[in-house]
Structures are given as C-alpha cells and as structure tokens.
C-alpha cells in the first residue's frame, strides 16, 4: 500500500497523541445558519464514542468534516496530527485511506457487485486481488452477505446495503471508523452483530465514532457520548442520559 512521506512522518510524531482534534470549529453551508458552532473536542487513539442528537443537530456535518468532504468555515481540525486545512491535495487521499466511513445513504456503486463494492478501498490502496480476495469473502460472510456477494446493490434490501457499506468501511482496517446511523435499517440481532464488529475493531486499536439515534445501543454499549444540540456540542459521560 502506498503511503506518503508526510503520513509516515506523522505516524512517528503522533503515535501517542490525539488522533482527532477539533478546535473551536464552525461550519456554515452558504448563507444558511451555522450547522456547527464552536465545536471543540479530541479523540485519543483507540477510543470509542457515539455522537447523538436530534435530526438536523449537526451529526452528519460533523462526520463530513472528519472525512474531509467539507472544510470548516472557522476553527482548526487536526487529523493524525495534520491540520486538514493545510494538507496538500497530494497528501489528502493518503489521510482519507486511514479513515473508514459508513455513509448514511450508503453510497454504494450500483454497477459493481457487492464483492467489488467491499473491495473498493483495497483496490484504491493498490493491493493485488490475490492478497485480499479471501478476506473480503470472509468479511462479507460475516456480515451475512455470503450468498449475496455477487449481486448488484440495487437488488439488495436496505439492511443488506447497510451491511455492505459497513463491510466496505472496515475492510481496509482504518485507524478511524466513522459510521453515520450504521444500524438504522438493521434488525436487533444484526445491530448487535455490527456493534460487536465495531467493538472488536476498537479493541484492535481502531478509533470508532458512531453517529446514531439508537439510544438503546448507546446505553447498552456504555461508551462516552458527544451530544449535539442545534450545532453545539454537549459532552456526556458514558451512560449519562
């Protein structure tokens, strides 16, 4: 897998520091009201957090800032020690490869099979098919898509699409995993399995950040919560309502 010199240097300098840091970050879309206001928080490597909040509170906007789909209108975001506003266009892809994302709308490629969709991050990273073919098959089997791996996404049910999106996000063993409503279309049993997968990845060192409405899952996990209210961040301790 190709890694830029900047990313390699960062690995050494940033190993024990915050993996993600927001410093008084605000985000405004065009002339509309601020979607996020003065957000400040930091995530340690290997931490597990939920982001909660009502619809429109800014959960997805916060996610977009972290996976660098949008830039903050004010403040500073540091990802793996890099100020994302100052990262060169050439280094940005290498930073993004270290972040796995489960999009709320899945964003699957409809013309590719489930197997091809799951393998996208590995192909982009330049790995040879022989090196990951079995891993992808195993992962798809694990998320319950063993018999659906060669069908196209439009033929998958909502929950199957969601599981495929999760498989794609975790297949490259990202250092940060972002999931926007990852269990929204899943039944209780599959939600439990997915949460277990996220927990296992977290134990292996992946920093996990999940945006969700599912208060039951949040309460059951006992993990700390970053609660958003109308663009403002309210920290909550683990288990706090």
């Amino acid at each position, binding site marked *: 897998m190709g890694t830029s010199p900047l990313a390699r240097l960062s690995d050494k300098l940033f190993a024990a520091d915050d993996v993600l840091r927001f410093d008084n970050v605000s985000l405004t879309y065009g002339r509309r009201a601020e979607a996020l206001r003065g957000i400040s928080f930091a995530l340690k490597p290997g931490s597990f957090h939920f982001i909660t909040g009502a619809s429109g509170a800014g959960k997805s906007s916060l996610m977009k800032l972290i996976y660098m789909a949008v830039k903050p209108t004010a403040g500073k975001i540091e990802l793996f020690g890099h100020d994302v506003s100052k990262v060169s266009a050439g280094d940005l*892809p290498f930073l*993004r490869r270290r972040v796995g994302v489960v999009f709320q709308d899945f964003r699957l*490629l409809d*013309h590719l099979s489930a*197997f*091809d969709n799951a393998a996208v991050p590995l192909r*982009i990273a330049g790995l040879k098919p022989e090196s990951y073919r079995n891993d992808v098959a195993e992962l798809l089997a694990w998320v319950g898509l063993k018999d659906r791996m*060669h069908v196209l996404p439009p033929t998958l049910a909502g929950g199957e699409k969601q599981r495929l999106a999760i498989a794609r996000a975790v297949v490259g063993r990202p250092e940060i995993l972002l999931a926007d409503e990852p269990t929204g279309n899943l039944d209780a049993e599959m939600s439990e399995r997915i949460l277990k997968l996220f927990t296992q990845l977290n134990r292996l060192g992946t920093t996990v950040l999940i945006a969700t409405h599912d208060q039951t899952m949040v309460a059951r996990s006992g993990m700390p919560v970053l609660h958003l209210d109308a663009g403002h961040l309210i920290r909550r301790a683990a288990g706090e309502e």
Partner: protein
Amino acid sequence: MSDLLARRWRPATFLPEADNRDGSLTFVVATLCFLACLMALTVLATNRAVNTWSDQLTSQATIIVRPRANETPDLAAARAAEALAGVPGVIEARALEREKAEALVEPWLGDITDLEDLPIPRLVAVDLDNASPATPSTLAAALKARGIDGIIDDHSIWTRDIARSADVIAWVCGGVFLLITAAAGAVIAFATRAGLLARREVVEVLHLTGAENLFIARLFQVRFAQLSAIAGALGAVGAAGVGAVLRLTAGGGELTHAIPILWSDLLVVAPCPLVAALVAAIAARMTAERMISEIT
C-alpha cells in the same frame, strides 16, 4: 459456492462498462478519423502525381528553332537536333515533323487549311538524363557553337507551378488534419466532462475512499482511449475501403489519373487507432484532472 465465486472473482472496472452516449461518440470520432485518413491518402496521392508530372517535365526540354535566312526550317531543326545529341546529359534529341508542330499550335489557331503559309517554328524535343540532366545553359552553348538560333524551354515554369500547387495542397491537408485532430480532442473533452458529471457519485465515493485525482482521471483516460481506438479503427477501415475503390477504379501511378493511389498507400491509415487513442487519452486526462479538482 460463494468461496468458488470469490476465488474466481476479477476486479470490475470502476466506471460502468457502457454508456448510452458511447454509440454517438464512437460515430463522431470514427467520422473524424475517416476524414483524417482521407486527408492522408489525398496528400500521398497528390505527392505521387506531382512527382510523376515533375519527373516527366524535368526530363524533357523543347527547343524552338529559328532558321537563318538561307536555311529551311526543317534543315535548321535537323542541325539543332544533331548539335544537341552529343551534349552530356542528353539522351536523345529529335526534330519534330512539321505536322506535329502544326498539331501543337492547332488548339490556338483552329482547324484552318492554309497553315503551311504560316511561319510555324520547328521544334526539337530533347530527352534528358534524369540522373544528371543537361542544363539550359549547356544546351544554349551547344546551339550557339553551331550558329543555331533557338529558344530553350526547360519546362521549369510548369514544374515550379506544380510544386507550388502540391505544397499548397499539402499545407491545406495538413491544416485540415490538425483541425480534425483538434475537433476530436474537443469532442473527447466534452464527453469526458459529461461522463464525469454523470458519474459524479462514483467519483465522490472513490475520492472519499482515498483515490487520488490521477487515479480517477486515469479511469476516464483509459475509457475514452479505448473507445477512440475502436472508433479510429472503424474510421481507418472506412477510409482504406474508399482508397481501395479509388485504386480499383482509377488505377495507380499513371500520369493520366488524377488520384494515383497505390495499394501500399492504404497502410497510411494503420496508425489511426493509435493516434486517435493518444489524442483521446491526452484530452480526457487533462479534462478529467481539471474537473475532478473542481468538483471534489
């Protein structure tokens, strides 16, 4: 079963295999390639015709002999032919009979019966050695040495005109060829732009998953290069077909034919698919890189 499928799995292309615009684009590029190949064939045929004409004109000279007061025109022409026959660079010199000289002026004077009363000058046709032809000054010196008054026409005025016309045709064809190439590039750039906008979601997913701009641009580059190579092959085959028809109907190489195409000339269309792919690759790459930077 799924394990078997996984083992047999081969990565699919990131861009959809076919697009409903592909047929139209292939037709447009194939047409442009067809026209470009016809241009190339035209240049080759024109050059061959010009060379044939020039060779024939430069290997001949005509002497207009003016007899002296006590000399008949036929005798003057015979003396001139004899004087020129031994000049280095001359293969043969022959005095044209009066009838041939009259036939030459007939187009200007019409079919009149009393031509013999006119003082029609006698002509000497001189065949020159192509390898080292005698110069007009050499011929003039030979005539002067024998006291013969003659005007030497080495056809240079015609060969210059023909060469100039050939140059003009070559430049015009070259200009049209460049115009066609630029048009093909513009069409591919337009198609790339449309393709990128139509596949914006694919581009965004690849981008957010860590693909570099160059990686995404290369997908479009390869796609349009392949399409253009196929279109180029179709255009080349079409142009070669037209060339073959011209060759069969008009023959090749003879001066009497306006478009002397040889079978070997048809090979000039062979690089067309490669050139079309190259032009498309450059146009698609430049457009895609610029657009990806703008939309992501």
